[in-house]
C-alpha cells in the first residue's frame, strides 16, 4: 500500500510541509527532508522548481528562482533523492508544474519517481480531465498517487468527479489565491471546510495555502485530515536556515 494511503489511515491530524528543492542551497534537499521527518512532520511536498510558477505567490516564486540559479534540475533532484528511502519513511510527494515533467517524458518521470520512492505528485497545471484521459494509466502503472486541488469555487459536481478519480487525498486550497497570501482564516474558510467535510468524500482532505502558524493549522484541521505549509516554512528557511527546522515544526505542532 502506498505510503500516502497508509499515512492517511493514522488517527491524527497530518502536518505536511512544502519546500522548493535546491533552496536555500542546491544540496539542502536531503537534509531538509530528513530534518522534517525527524521533527515529526507527516508528509513532504518536494517542490520541483519551475521558471514560471503561475499558481505561486512571491515567496515560493523567489525560492524557485533561487533554486534554479543554484542549479536545480529534474535530473539533479532525482540524483539527490536516489538514496532517500534509506533514511526516510514518511510519504514524499513531488510538487511541480507540468512542463518540466513533459520535457522529461511523463512516463520516464513516473518511472523515476517509483524507483526513487516518491509516492505521489501534485501538478497544479495538469487539469483533471487531461490527467484522466491521458496520464492516469501511466501514473497508476508506477504506483503514483496524483493529488488534485479543489478551491472554494469548485462546484459540487466537480468535487465529486475529482474525488472519484483521486486515490489519496484531496488538496483543499483554503481560499482562491496563489500561495502565501492569506493571513488567518475567517468564517468563509471554516464554512467551506465544513461544507466539504459534510460531502463525506471517499478521499480525505488536506488543507493548503495560508497556513503559517499553530493557530491556522488547528483551524484548518478542525474539519480536515491535515494541512500543508509552504510559504511560511520557506520564509523560515530564508531567515533562520536549515538547522532550525525543529523550531519551525514545534511552533506549528506546539
Amino acid at each position, binding site marked *: 500500500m502506498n505510503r500516502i494511503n497508509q499515512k492517511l489511515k493514522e488517527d491524527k491530524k497530518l502536518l505536511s510541509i512544502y519546500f522548493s528543492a535546491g533552496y536555500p542551497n542546491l544540496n539542502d534537499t536531503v537534509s531538509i527532508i530528513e530534518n522534517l521527518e525527524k521533527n515529526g512532520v507527516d508528509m513532504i511536498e518536494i517542490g520541483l522548481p*519551475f*521558471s*514560471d*510558477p*503561475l*499558481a*505561486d*505567490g512571491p515567496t515560493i*516564486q523567489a525560492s524557485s*528562482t533561487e533554486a*534554479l540559479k543554484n542549479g536545480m*534540475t*529534474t*535530473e539533479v533532484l532525482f540524483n539527490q533523492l536516489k538514496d532517500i528511502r534509506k533514511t526516510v519513511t514518511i510519504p514524499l510527494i513531488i510538487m511541480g*508544474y*507540468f*512542463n*518540466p*515533467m*513533459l*520535457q*522529461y517524458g511523463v512516463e520516464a518521470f513516473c518511472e523515476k519517481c517509483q524507483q526513487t520512492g516518491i509516492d505521489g505528485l501534485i501538478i*497544479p*497545471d*495538469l*487539469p*483533471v480531465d*487531461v490527467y484522466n484521459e491521458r496520464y492516469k494509466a501511466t501514473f497508476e502503472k508506477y504506483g503514483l498517487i496524483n493529488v*488534485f*486541488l*479543489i*478551491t472554494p*469555487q*469548485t*462546484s459540487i459536481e*466537480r468535487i465529486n468527479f475529482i474525488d472519484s478519480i483521486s486515490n489519496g487525498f484531496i488538496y483543499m*486550497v483554503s481560499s*482562491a*489565491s*496563489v500561495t502565501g*497570501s492569506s493571513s488567518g482564516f475567517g468564517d468563509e474558510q471554516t464554512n467551506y471546510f465544513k461544507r466539504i467535510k459534510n460531502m463525506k468524500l471517499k478521499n480525505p482532505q488536506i488543507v493548503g495555502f495560508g497556513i503559517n502558524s499553530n493557530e491556522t493549522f488547528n483551524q484548518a484541521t478542525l474539519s480536515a485530515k491535515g494541512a500543508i505549509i509552504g510559504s511560511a516554512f520557506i520564509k523560515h528557511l530564508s531567515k533562520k536556515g536549515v538547522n532550525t527546522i525543529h523550531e519551525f515544526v514545534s511552533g506549528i505542532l506546539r
Partner: protein
Amino acid sequence: MKYNISNNGYYGDFGGAYIPEMLYPNVEELRQNYLKIMAEPSFKEEFNQLLKDYVGRPSPLYFARRLSKKYNTKIYLKREDLNHTGAHKVNNTIGQILMAQRLGKTRIIAETGAGQHGVATATVCALMGMECIVYMGEIDIARQAPNVARMKMLGAKVVPALSGSRTLKDATNEAIRDWINNPINTHYIIGSVVGPHPYPDMVARFQAVVSEEIQWQLKEKEGKTTPDYVVACVGGGSNAAGAFYHYLENTNVKLIAVEAAGKGIHSGESAATSVLGREGIIHGSKTLLMQTKDGQITEPYSISAGLDYPGVGPMHAHLYKTGRAEFISITDDEAMTAGLELSQLEGIIPAIETSHAFAIFDHKKFKADDVVVINLSGRGDKDLQNYIDYFKL
C-alpha cells in the same frame, strides 16, 4: 487537414487548457459561454457598432505604391495602425469587454508587452467604466513609456512585473496570479491568441474582422477576395491570427508569419520560437515555446516588447508544424531598417513589432503580379524614442 480549432480546444496537437484548478471556474464559464454570447444578435450589434464608430473600422486596405515599386510586387497594407489606440489589439479588447459585461464581471485585468494591449484594455475599461489593472514587465515599462503614460491617463493601474525576464511572459504570470486571487468579479482580458482554451479561439475570432475586411476590400481593388500572400508579425500571434483567419483553410493563400530573431536566431538573444522552440506548456496552453532541455522557459529577447515572448499561440504552433504557414525570423537590425524604410517611402511609421513584417523582402522574393497583403498591426508612436536612439536621428 484542418487548420482552425477543434471542438475540444485544440489546433492539431496544440492548445487545451493546462490551468490550475483555481482558474477552472473562470475559464470553464468562459468556455461554455463565449460562442453563445458571440452569436447573440445584441452582442454582434454592439461589437460591430463599436468597431465602426469607436475603433474606426473598417481599417483601410492601402495599396503601397512606392513600396510595391521598390520590391516589384503588389503590396497592400492592412491599416490596423489607424484603429483607435493605434493597433489591432483593440479589436479584441472591445470584444472581451462586452463579453466580460455579459458575464457580470466588474474588474478587468490584463498583461501587456508593448503596452498596446494594455492601452486597448484601459481604453475599453474607461469606455465602460470598469476598474482596470494592467500588468507589465519592468523592462517593458521602461521601453514603452508612452503607452504607460496613456494607461495612466485612462485611469488604469499599471503594476510592474518584477520576476523573470521582467517582460511579457512575466506580466502574463502576474496577471494569471491576480486572476487566481480574484476568481469571482474579475475577467482577464488576454491580449493575444495565447493562454488556455478558449482564449486563443476567442481572441482569433475577435481579430478575424481583419481578414473578413481584407476579403471584400481586395475584391474591390483586385477583383478577387484572395491575395497570394498574407504576411504578419507574430508575438503571441493575434494580429497574424486575425489576418490569416478567413484564409486558413484556403491553401491558395500563402501565409507568412514573421518572428523576432532579436540579435540573431542563435545569438542567445532571440524570440524566434518556431526555430528555437519545442512543444511544451506555457500560460495554460500546449504550444511551441523556447525552453531549456529541462523544461524551464527561456527568457526571450527582442527589441520589440510585443514580440519578446518565448511562445506562440497554439494556432501558430499548428500552422508551423503542418507547414501551412512559412515562418521567417527577422533580427532587430533588419526590423529597424524596414521600419525606417516604410516611414520614408510611405509616410507610415510602424510599431517595431510591425516593422518585422516589413523586413521580409530580403528573405522572400515575390513575383511582380503577386498580391501581398501585409498586416500593418500598429503604429510606431510608442517606439519613437527607440527609433531615434537607434538611428541617431
